[in-house]
């Protein structure tokens, strides 16, 4: 840390978190930590249930075959299932 104030604030934060039963419950093996991290994933995200196509040419092929219009989302990243916008 670059400053003593940030060290102090981080120390205070760490102490506060140690007092929090759930937040710093220690996983003492990689397997246990992996399970803990997976538990932090939301069980259901509605936008991941959409069958996104990332290739426009693939989308056009599907639209032609299924005779449907294309809903195109142009956003700053490319993968709404995984990335931030």
């Amino acid at each position, binding site marked *: 840390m670059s400053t003593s104030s940030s060290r102090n604030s981080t120390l205070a934060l760490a102490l506060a978190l140690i007092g929090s039963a759930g937040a710093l419950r220690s996983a003492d093996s990689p397997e246990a930590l992996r399970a803990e*991290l997976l538990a932090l*994933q939301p069980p259901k995200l509605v936008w991941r249930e959409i069958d996104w196509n990332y290739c426009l040419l693939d989308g*056009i092929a599907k639209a032609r075959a299924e005779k449907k219009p294309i809903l195109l*989302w142009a956003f700053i990243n490319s993968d709404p299932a*995984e990335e931030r916008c």
Partner: protein
Amino acid sequence: MQSDFVAVSVAAGNMHRPAAGLENELLRAIGKSGPAPQGIAVLNADGQVLDWVLMFDDDASVLKFLDHARQRFAVHPDNSAPFMTERYQRFPGSKRDDVAAHTVTVPKGGGHDDTVRCPADSIYEPGTLIAKVAGRRVIEEGRLTGDTVNQEDYSQDRFVITPGTQRQLLEAVNKADGKRVRVPDQVARQWVTYAYMGMLDVNPFNNPAGATSDHKDVAFDIETAGGHPGWYRITGESHGSVKTERRQGDGAGFENDVQLTWRGFARIENDRLVSLLLRGDGDERLMWNPGGLPGAIGRGPEVANLPAGRHVDWKGPVSFSIIGTPAKAEQTSPTAAGAAAPEDRHREIQAKIPQLRDHMEKGGARVMQTVAPLMQEFQKLMREQRFDEASKQLDKILGQLDAASAVPEKAAAPPKPSTN
């Protein structure tokens, strides 16, 4: 939506850059007709834009827009006759001028040829680790909120750890021979950069709008994990903080301060990082005040403020998970380091520039002198558009700047000239 439309997601940047190939030509034509670089469009089955929309008058207008677009699709299902592209700033209340629908044609059965990479494909060097990040708001005593819609409740992101970045970690680990050692700042900073709530604009470690960070502090240690062969235990702390009263351009004001305590494990096999598991717990203060809306903060439907975002003023405990796994074989190419598209390399360099700027601001002339010869070479490579080499050179510069800035002023000395 799933039953009535084919959903396609594209990076807005791919619609506004020169690149070869039919798909890129089509993306540019679609992007050219749009009212903004980002947005939602409905296309017919030949890829022509029926309607563009940026925002909606209210929630009910979202479904009305989809119905409206389906009706237009019924009239213009393909490119057999010319028509006009409708463009809505806000549907249905604020409409801009129509433009003629583009005429780029995709042949029936047409796909990618072998010479042009699909703009949606990312190809990595073998050994690249892909890390997925999830952030959750904690309600009390480690219990997570079940809400995942709003940005202060849930965040997600992804980043890649290249073999080059892995080498920096492995060198530190190997030198320490399994004993506790500091993770190089450049490596640790990448781990924590994506652990924050909120949208891209409020990144406290690598702000895309160039807002200066008050804190970019990382301190991570790594050591052999006893009883778990091949695994290393990681502990660390991070503090990122960025604040802007009024951003140039759109006038947005924001603040994001994230302080986390980390623990985790890394697995190293054959000089490769093959697994990264990290958990960060702590507190975050997030404020976003969209520009130009001083009288409307917190009011009105969210769908009426999509580009600027809704007002957020929140503080609370958060937990982040990072799970890194190797890129799949089909995502890699032995020549990826050299064969990556120039625009990808250029983007990679742009992402590192805030770190360089940070060193310049905080270290001043003393620190920058230590890398002056390397900087000249970097500038030369950039001028010659040799982005792959320039990116590696910038990694080297940042590594030396990290080392130099950690040394007290009197002890700092220029590094030995590079032999590469």
